[in-house]
């Protein structure tokens, strides 16, 4: 992982990231001996995001532990998706997008110029709101990420496809129809296929932007269960509109409001005894 991203000079955009070269690689106090699992997987510091003149994210700092599930909650338009998409630099395609501050994954600043986007995204997978399988076969969908890496070994690809489909709890349903178009699957199956497709690339972080909002309750339950089990191998961040979902599956919850991070704590704390009045109002449904 150490040098994964820093393979070339692909930084085309210029970010107003003045501190990037100054800040040392180590962010924690060296005197505090932390076990390896306790090291942060993902850290953001003083992050601001602008779309033109509009500020969508205001001064957000947050640290996320490995192998945990973090839920982002908050009313529509508060910046959850914007913030989530910073971690795989998916906002880079928006023409008037600008970001300030620092985001580190495994202690590497992902917004520095040397970062290769392709490498970053192999490490940070993403599942979208609406299931978006490619108009290709089920097999080709899952194999896609491997093929674009230049993997040619058919046996290896087949193995990884099967493994990913098993992990995504879809294998038993599709193993006899791998060559069928992915578009023939139901919505819930399509979303699990999209998860499998992401897993096949073997990322360490998975970003999910309201992955169940387009699905029925049964499919939703299946995917929640799946996400819960993935926690043992992956760091998961999930944006959700559904309070029950956040409280059921996440370890940590971050509440956003108008681009600000209002509160970030253990999920149990947020849902039983939040520090801020705004958080309480939101989770009890008094606004939002």
């Amino acid at each position: 992982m150490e040098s994964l991203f820093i393979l070339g000079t692909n930084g085309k955009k210029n970010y107003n990231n003045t501190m990037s070269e100054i800040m040392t690689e180590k962010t924690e106090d060296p005197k505090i001996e932390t076990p390896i699992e306790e090291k942060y997987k993902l850290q953001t510091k003083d992050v601001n995001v602008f779309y033109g003149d509009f500020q969508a994210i205001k001064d957000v700092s947050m640290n996320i532990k490995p192998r945990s599930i973090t839920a982002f909650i908050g009313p529509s338009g508060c910046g959850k998706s914007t913030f989530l998409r910073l971690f795989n630099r998916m906002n880079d395609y928006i023409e008037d997008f600008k970001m300030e501050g620092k985001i580190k994954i495994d202690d590497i600043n992902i917004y520095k110029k040397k970062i290769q986007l392709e490498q970053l995204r192999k490490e940070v997978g993403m599942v979208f709101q609406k299931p978006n399988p490619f108009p290709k076969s089920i097999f080709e969908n899952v194999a896609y990420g491997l093929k674009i890496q230049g993997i040619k070994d058919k046996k290896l690809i087949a193995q990884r496809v099967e493994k990913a489909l098993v992990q995504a709890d879809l294998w038993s349903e599709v193993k006899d129809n791998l060559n069928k178009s992915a578009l023939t699957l139901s919505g819930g199956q399509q979303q699990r296929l999209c998860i499998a497709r992401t897993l096949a690339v073997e990322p360490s972080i998975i970003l999910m932007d309201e992955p169940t909002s387009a699905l029925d309750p049964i499919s939703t339950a299946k995917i929640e269960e799946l996400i819960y089990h993935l926690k043992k191998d992956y760091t998961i961040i999930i944006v959700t509109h559904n309070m029950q979902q956040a409280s059921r599956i996440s370890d940590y919850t971050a509440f956003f409001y108008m681009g600000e991070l209002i509160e970030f704590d253990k999920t149990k704390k947020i849902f039983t005894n939040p520090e801020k009045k705004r958080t309480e109002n939101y989770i009890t449904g008094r606004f939002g």
Partner: protein
Amino acid sequence: MRKIKELIIEKSLLSSALVTIAVTIGIILVLAIEAFLFFKEVSIFDFFTDTQWTPLFTEKHYGILPLLSGTLLTTFIAISVALPIGLSISIYLSEYAPRSFRKTIKPLLELLAAVPSVVYGFFALVVVTPYLQQFMPSLSGFNSLSAGIVMGIMIIPFVSSLSEDALFAVPKDLREASYGMGATRLQTAFKVVVPAASSGIIVSIILAISRAIGETMIVAIAAGQQPRLTLDPTVPVETITAYIVQVSLGDVQHGSLEYRTIFAAGITLFVFTFLLNTLSFRIRKKYREKYE
């Protein structure tokens, strides 16, 4: 009063629609009747197997193959030029270019198709052919190569504009999914976006072919008027359209067999473009269903 006005407008709209349909049917009828009369004198078998087309000479032959080969040869050259350039432009505009650049360049490109084709024909004859002759001394003054190349340039916007529409219509979700797995822009364009837009791209190519087959002025001016069954792009040939122009402008007698050759050639052309248009219509319909 108002009602009567509405009624008049409605009826006049209806009648212009009916007139259009009637004219179209009339044209097809004339074409079919004259062609039928032609085929009463010339066997269809000869028409499709004879390798000479000399209806205006004393030694008469009525084989459509030389005209057909002239048409297909110039069309093939045109598509070989228009397809790679048009597709590259469409992929660049849809996947790489900034939105503002795309907005200005697309109408400019479409201007290429708005230039009168007689200008292109002239350009092929007096600029492209002499230029190519510097490298290919054996190139005839009239040839299918220059005509085809220039025709290819003319139909670039048919390919680029319609393909670009198809590429641009591919949902943003699919691109993001591809980028999200670590694909480059190039991989995303060729492995996800182009396949997803393939039916639209095929339609654009078919329409471009159809346009090239029907193109008249460029080939009449620059490709020559010598019906010849050949695949050699350096010699004069004649296309179906160029033949029709040649005979229509000449003084063949109305109702004669020579006169009817126009209709036999014309119906061949019509069948080709009709089939191509039907094909593209079918594909387009299917593709529309796919996205809904």
